[in-house]
Each structure stands twice: as structure tokens, then as C-alpha cells.
């Protein structure tokens, strides 16, 4: 059985992942659309910036977040003065770190949906009386739903696995910022907690496996509902 610290870490991991993915979906869809449909310098730059967290060392991301969101930082100062919110050493900071690190996976999946969408269908919607916004919500979004679901699930799994940026940015505080990987890290550092470490490793593997399996099943189901079979997708 799990001890209270492990249960707390598990709950916190789930909670932070849900928050991180939730705040990412709308910007993720918008940015995926821009980099899929638009050409030019702005779209190219955006494309590179979005994918940076995928290749940068997590500690670099954590440190940059620390600089940006500290009470003297550009964003941290703004949040503190305007909304009286400080994200330092809190779950909010952990959610931001998870969101930033998982964002490229979300955007890549959704972008793939936009890339493979048949834009002739869009023309048919316009001629049938749909404005561009109407068409986006009534035709394009439902048709790329499998990609959005895949992106959400992959991003969720990535959030659960987040370690480097989080520990650099918001430290390792039980009950506040100590997610599963951080709890596991702590367990590996203290003598006599090997059993706890093994339990956390097993939970991590199961969670990762279940997340990816859910992503596959949901995407296939939605694909089938929308397109009949996966070959049409």
C-alpha cells in the first residue's frame, strides 16, 4: 500500500497535469492552426519557439521560468501586482512548468490534424453558408478531434513525467510541488526508503502505460466515429 506522502504526490501529479493541460488546450489549438496554415517569418519563429522545450535541457526551462516568474521577473512582477498571485514554490508554478514542457507534444499532434485536414471540405462549408469562424467550429474542429485527443493525452502523460523544470523552478515541497517524479527522487536520496522508491517507479510506469493506451483507444474510437475506419484518416 502507498504511504500518505506517496498518495499526496500521486494526487498532486494528477491535479497539476489536469490544470497544465487545461490551460494549454486553447492556446495549443490556436498556435497549431497558425503554424499549420500560415507562412512567413512569424509562423516560422512561432514554430521554433513552441518546439524549443522539446530539445532544451529541462533545467534550462526551469531556470528561465524562475527568472520570468520570480517576484522581480517580468511575468512574476505583473502577476503579483495585478492579481496578487505568486507562483513561486507553489503548485501553480509546477503547473506552469508542466504546461510549458508538455506544450510541444500537444501542438505537434493538433498541427498534424490541421495538416492532414482536407481543406476542400472547408470550401464546401463556405458555399453552404458557413462563415470562417462557423466553419472552424462546425467542421474543422470536429474533424481533427482525434488529433486533439491524442495531443491532450500525450501532454497529460508528459506532465506526469515532468521533473527537471519543476524542481528547478518551484523546488521539491511535499504537498505543494512534490509530484510523483520528485517524490521518487527524494526516496532515492534517503537511505531506507528503497521500497517506497520501487512503489513509485511501478506507479509511474503504470500511469505512463495507461495514458498512452487511453490516447490510442480514444483516438481510434473518435477516428472511427468520424471517418469510418482508420484508413480514411
Amino acid at each position, binding site marked *: 500500500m502507498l504511504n500518505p506522502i506517496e498518495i499526496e504526490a500521486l494526487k498532486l501529479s494528477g491535479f497539476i497535469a489536469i490544470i497544465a493541460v487545461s490551460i494549454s488546450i486553447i492556446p495549443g489549438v490556436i498556435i497549431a492552426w497558425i503554424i499549420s496554415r500560415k507562412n512567413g517569418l512569424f509562423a516560422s519563429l512561432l514554430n521554433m519557439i513552441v518546439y524549443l522545450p522539446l530539445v532544451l535541457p529541462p533545467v534550462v526551462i526551469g531556470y528561465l521560468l524562475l527568472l520570468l516568474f520570480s517576484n522581480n521577473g517580468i511575468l512574476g512582477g505583473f502577476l503579483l501586482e495585478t492579481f496578487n498571485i505568486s507562483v513561486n514554490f507553489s503548485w501553480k508554478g509546477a503547473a506552469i512548468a508542466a504546461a510549458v514542457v508538455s506544450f510541444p507534444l500537444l501542438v505537434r499532434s493538433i498541427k498534424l490534424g490541421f495538416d492532414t485536414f482536407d481543406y*476542400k*471540405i472547408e*470550401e*464546401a*462549408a*463556405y*458555399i*453552404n*453558408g*458557413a*462563415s470562417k469562424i*462557423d466553419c472552424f467550429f*462546425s*467542421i474543422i474542429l*470536429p*474533424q481533427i*478531434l482525434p488529433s486533439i485527443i491524442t495531443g491532450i493525452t500525450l501532454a497529460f502523460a508528459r506532465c506526469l513525467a515532468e521533473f527537471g523544470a519543476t524542481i528547478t523552478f518551484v523546488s521539491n515541497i511535499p504537498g505543494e510541488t512534490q509530484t510523483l517524479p520528485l517524490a521518487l527522487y527524494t526516496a532515492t536520496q534517503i537511505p531506507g526508503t528503497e521500497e517506497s522508491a520501487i512503489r513509485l517507479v511501478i506507479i509511474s510506469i503504470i500511469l505512463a502505460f495507461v495514458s498512452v493506451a487511453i490516447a490510442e483507444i480514444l483516438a481510434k474510437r473518435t477516428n472511427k*466515429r*468520424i*471517418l*469510418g*475506419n482508420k484508413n*480514411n484518416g
Partner: protein
Amino acid sequence: MARSNLIKYETILGDFSSNINFDFSDSNIIAITGLSGSGKSTIAKVICGLIKPKNGYIKINNKILYSSRDKINIPPHQRKIGMVFQESRLFSHMSVQNNLLYGQRRNTVFDQKKFDKIINILGIKSILNRKIFNLSGGEAQRVSIGRALLSEPKILILDEPLTGLDAQRQNKILKIIKDINKNLNIPILFISHSLEEIIFIAAKIIIIENGKVATQGSIDQIISYQKLSSFNKSNTIYSLIKGVIHSHDKTNSNTIIDVNGIKLITKPISDKINSGQIIKLFSKDISIATKIPKNISINNILETKITKIKISKKNGIAEIFLALGKQQIVSEITLFSLQKLKLKTNLKVYALIKAISIVGK
């Protein structure tokens, strides 16, 4: 008030420029035809607003949709054009019924009577709850036509709607299109490269060549070979002529067709006497003799005169143009035969017609 429609525009797409000008004011079916790449489909896209012309003027049902001079360019979703594409372009995440109602919901209030009328004409009542991916090609195209019609368009444009369908389904949809035109009193622009389809369906034909209107008129006016030859695939040369049923010979199971006073014998046709027929004669099925041949199985041996000879040394053939009343047919013979028979313009010859096919009325 007559419904006036005017399409006049100039557009440049890459290295292809198009300069189109035609008008129509009735609710008939107008066919637009031409070789692939001639700019047929561009016309549809310009009318729909999917392509913005460089300059020009588009008016449908007395409403200006585009005018470069007055800086008017109504967006596609406000143009009220019904469009059916080569591929059905249905929305695969919706049922047939929701596809049908997509345009209707965005353009007009729901009218059950009209809905029923349209789905009855199209014969799609039994498939309303089906998913799009479970439809056959013909069904999908009928749903696509229904979706366009229910959006209450001022004009229906069909861009090669029969491509990829088998002959049986093609005929079914052609009949449906005629029914729609008759029952819903809506003008239809029918874009197709197929002469058979056009002759079957259209009252007026517009031929597009290299982005321009080459000729236009009723079937009677443009049926002569010269005008149609421009988009006739060179390896299957044929002539189209028009005649009326003269009589039915029940003893020999024949029908006799009168083409400007000349009688052609065909297989039995079930239509009434005096009904108009369009006849397709493949050039390879017409042989030439300088004397009337005897003891021969061919029934249609017509006395005629050579009006023109077109020689193709590359292919070793000659196209012999023959007068048939005011109409013209073409025979394809080898250059060897041309020399042997010493054929020349204005020479009286006999055309031996091996096969006749009826392609329309």
C-alpha cells in the same frame, strides 16, 4: 422580372489566364464543357467566390456578387450558390440528415414540405440516418446535391458530378438533375467534359477553350463536328448529328431516322415518330466508296459529297468531311485508300455507315 445572370471576368492563375463572358436569363440547364485544363472548373470557383478574379462582373439572379469597378466582392457564404463538386465533399463527422440540413440551417427556415420534396426527388429517404462513410459513390453525390438544394440557392452548379460513377448511377443522377430543374425551377450550370452527358441534359452549351468561351448556343446550333472537335479526344473522332424518327419498321425490327431528308436505318428505338434524336457516328465506322456497292451487309449507304479533306501524315490517316444535308459527318480512312480512290473535295461519294448509336434527344 427575368432572372438575369451575367458572368464576365478575367483571372490569372499562375501562367494560366482566363477571360470568360457569357450570360443566361432562363431556368434551363446550361452545360459548360471543354478539354481538361481549359478553365471550366475555374468558372464555378469564381462564381462561388472561392477564386477572386482580377477584374470583371458576376451577377446571379439580378444580384451583383462581384464587381471590380464598384469594389463589390460578396464572400462565398453569403452568395447563395449551390455547388456540387466532383468529389461529394460531405462532412464525414455528421449523419446524412445533418449534412443535408447544414446549408439549410445557415440560409433559410426549415420547410418540411420542401425537405420531403427534395429527398423524394433524390431518392435518399431511406439513408437519412446513415453515416457518410457508409454511402456508395452515387448516394454520396445525391446527398451532396440535396445539401446544395436545401440551402435555397439561386443557382445550382454541378462540377463534373458524375466522375467516378458507373454508367447506371450516372444515368440515374442525370435523370435526377433534369427532374430538379423541372420541379424546382432553378437554373443549373452543368460542367462536364462528356458530350453524352451534355447532350442528354443541357438546353444550352458553352464551350470553353484555353480560358475563353469558344462558342455557345443550343445543341442544334453547335452540334456540327467542327465546333465540337476542339475538345474531342483525337483518338476517338466522331460526329454528332440530329434527326427525327421517321417510322418504325416492325417487320424487320428497325427504326428509320430522317436526317435532313436522308434516311438512316437503326436498331429499334421505343420513342414516338417525329421525336428528335441525337446520333453519334464514329469516324472509323464510316467507309467510303466511289460507286454504290452491291451485295453488302451494311444498311446505311448514303449518297454524299466531300466538303473537306484533312490529312494527317503522321498517323497515316485522312479525315473526310461529308455533307449530310446541312449537317456534316466525318469518315476516317487510310492515306492509301485516299490515293486509291482519288478522293478530292466536291467529289460525289457513298458513305457506308457500319454503326449508329443514339446518345440523346
